[in-house]
């Protein structure tokens, strides 16, 4: 575990603020899309091994992921993850409960891709803005896989380091736990840490 970098308090606060800003914007967009209040918050940001992601989701069912790759000053892959029932619940809450289970099942891929796109864009946008840079961002990819196959399906290695962002989603009748993961190559990770330090220095 020694190769997993640890965020110091300042770095964690900064990232939390950054992502809260991002998801806050995403929440506003989502609320506007479905004309109901949706609240998103980021209670926790940490570095972890990619395998930790699976433990956190601790799911017997499949996991839904929406990912967008980022290229620019550093390369990364941003992934939004929901346990299957959580993802379905998001769709049900956002589309209205009068829809049948069959309709939800038909629509969930398209709907979650779009929701994921909004959340990921907002977070990536927040990072871009704070670092004053522009990334090339790919369009979202939807994936649904069992926990064992999640890493493979997301093109990840067991030992990859990820920046794991806990996202809490509050919809009218339910609280849904999701995760946002930024996956970096070791080189990109260094660049990110460098950018963070630079940012902190510029602030202080």
């Amino acid at each position: 575990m020694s190769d997993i970098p640890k965020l110091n308090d300042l770095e964690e606060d900064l990232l939390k603020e950054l992502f809260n800003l991002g998801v806050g914007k995403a929440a506003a967009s989502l609320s506007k899309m479905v004309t109901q209040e949706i609240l998103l918050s980021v209670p926790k940001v940490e570095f972890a091994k990619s395998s930790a992601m699976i433990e956190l989701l601790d799911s017997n069912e499949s996991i839904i992921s929406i990912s967008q790759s980022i290229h620019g000053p550093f390369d990364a892959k941003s992934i939004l993850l929901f346990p299957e029932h959580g993802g379905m619940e998001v769709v049900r809450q956002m589309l209205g409960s009068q829809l049948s289970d069959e309709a939800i099942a038909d629509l969930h891929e398209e709907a979650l891709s779009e929701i994921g796109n909004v959340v990921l864009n907002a977070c990536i946008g927040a990072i871009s803005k704070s670092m004053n840079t522009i990334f090339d961002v790919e369009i979202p990819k939807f994936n649904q896989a069992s926990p064992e196959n999640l890493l493979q399906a997301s093109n990840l290695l067991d030992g990859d380091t990820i920046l794991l962002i806990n996202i809490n989603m509050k919809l009218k009748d339910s609280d849904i736990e999701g995760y946002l993961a930024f996956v970096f190559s070791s080189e990109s990770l260094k660049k990110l840490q460098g950018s963070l330090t630079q940012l902190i220095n510029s602030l202080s």
Partner: protein
Amino acid sequence: MLTTECYSNLVNNINSGIIILNSEKKLLHWNQWIQDHSQFELSNYTNHLLTEIFPDLKNSRIEDAIESALELGLPSLISNIFSRTPFALYNPGNFNVDKLNDDRIQQAVNISRIKVDEDRVFCLIQINDVTASVAREKNLELQVKERKEVESSLLKIETRQRAIMQTMIDALIIFDSNGFIDSFNPAAEKLFGYSENDMMGDNIAFLIEEFSGVKELRESIELMFELGIIGKTKECVAIKCNGSQFPVDISISEIELGNEKFFSAVIRDVSDRKQMDKLKKDFITTVSHELRTPLTSIRGSLGLLCGGIIADIPKKALDLIQVANNNCERLIYLINDILDIEKATSGQMAFEFKTFNLKNLVEQSIGNNASYATQYNVSYKLIEEAKDLAVDVDEHRFQQIMSNLLSNAAKFSIPESSVDIIINFQNELVEIDVKDYGQGIPDKFKENIWNKFTQADTSTTREKGGTGLGLAISKTLTEAMHGTISFTSKEGEGSTFQLRLPLAKNKTM
């Protein structure tokens, strides 16, 4: 490398909308598809802000997405789920002048940034027409919804029917046209002692004595039709699982389900009722017999006293004895009537059929009742409209019926009037009409006239005498002799009772 013209051709031939904006969100180009679906001429709009061309995009997600793409390079998928018709685009085939929101094509939009060179970025908006697939999905959703509604209403009906079957007090057995049992409710389980599982697929014939002994199971249904059970309530003997038999009322109805025919049998144990009936009959018979024995000797003694066997009975005492004698006679009639009706209804009465000349029989009846009629100052008049008629009857019972009709007629006649007895032959039946010109039968009483112990006015029982059993007995006796009895009556004008009997098979006397 492709030429610009070639690109332009390519873009124009794509079957979706392409809009390219410059970094100031102003229109650079759109393809033929957009022109067809908006009916806006490209040349009129180049270098206009997109929100000027499509004003309802202001503050929309499209505008946000364009901004994100241009500023931060973020691509946006705007599916049809959350934004159905963001652009004012219409089907080129039926362009509506009103341009209603509902007429717009259903859209799915992708917005992204394209980097032309180091300094220049454009925004690419791609619009797909998803009207057809949305309609298909909607249709599918509707079908699913309808199917679910049908399913849930069927389920409700089934649950309700099941509940009714389960909680019915009477046994309910449903079986198919071969007699095979399809459903056997808890009351049936309790009544027969079999469980529903035991009986599924077994035949109804095992449960009912009357159906047993059929060679083929199919015959049981035919037998049911023969027995006239279908659509009626019939008394049968049922067999319990331990082999014991008990009386039941069974009502079978036919149910048609599509091409299949089912039958439902509602079965009620009538052991208790039968027991009560028997007790009642036994009681009446016993009481009547026990009463008759002492009455016979009382009548004998009273008769002798009235006949003057003892001289010197004071006139006042003799009058009282006469009253006692009359009432004793009446009591004997009543008891005989009760015994008769019990015998007749239980089928214990024996009939001795012989062929008689009708006129002779009727003349005899008139003779028997003439003195009774004299009491009421009424005379009988025989009118023979058909001659030489013969009937097969039990003479004694026939006279009993005629006595009843003739005495009733006399009793309810106006004094000095006559009672007409008309013999006739119509519709292959012998008719005897007994017609009086008395007070007639009140309308409200007509439907009860054949019931036991009924008279129009309870007070007349005292004035006119009688048990109220006469007509009930007459009807039972007539039917036992294959005849019918009926009446017509008008209040204040009189009544006619008509006795119809079959003509004797051997007409020659």
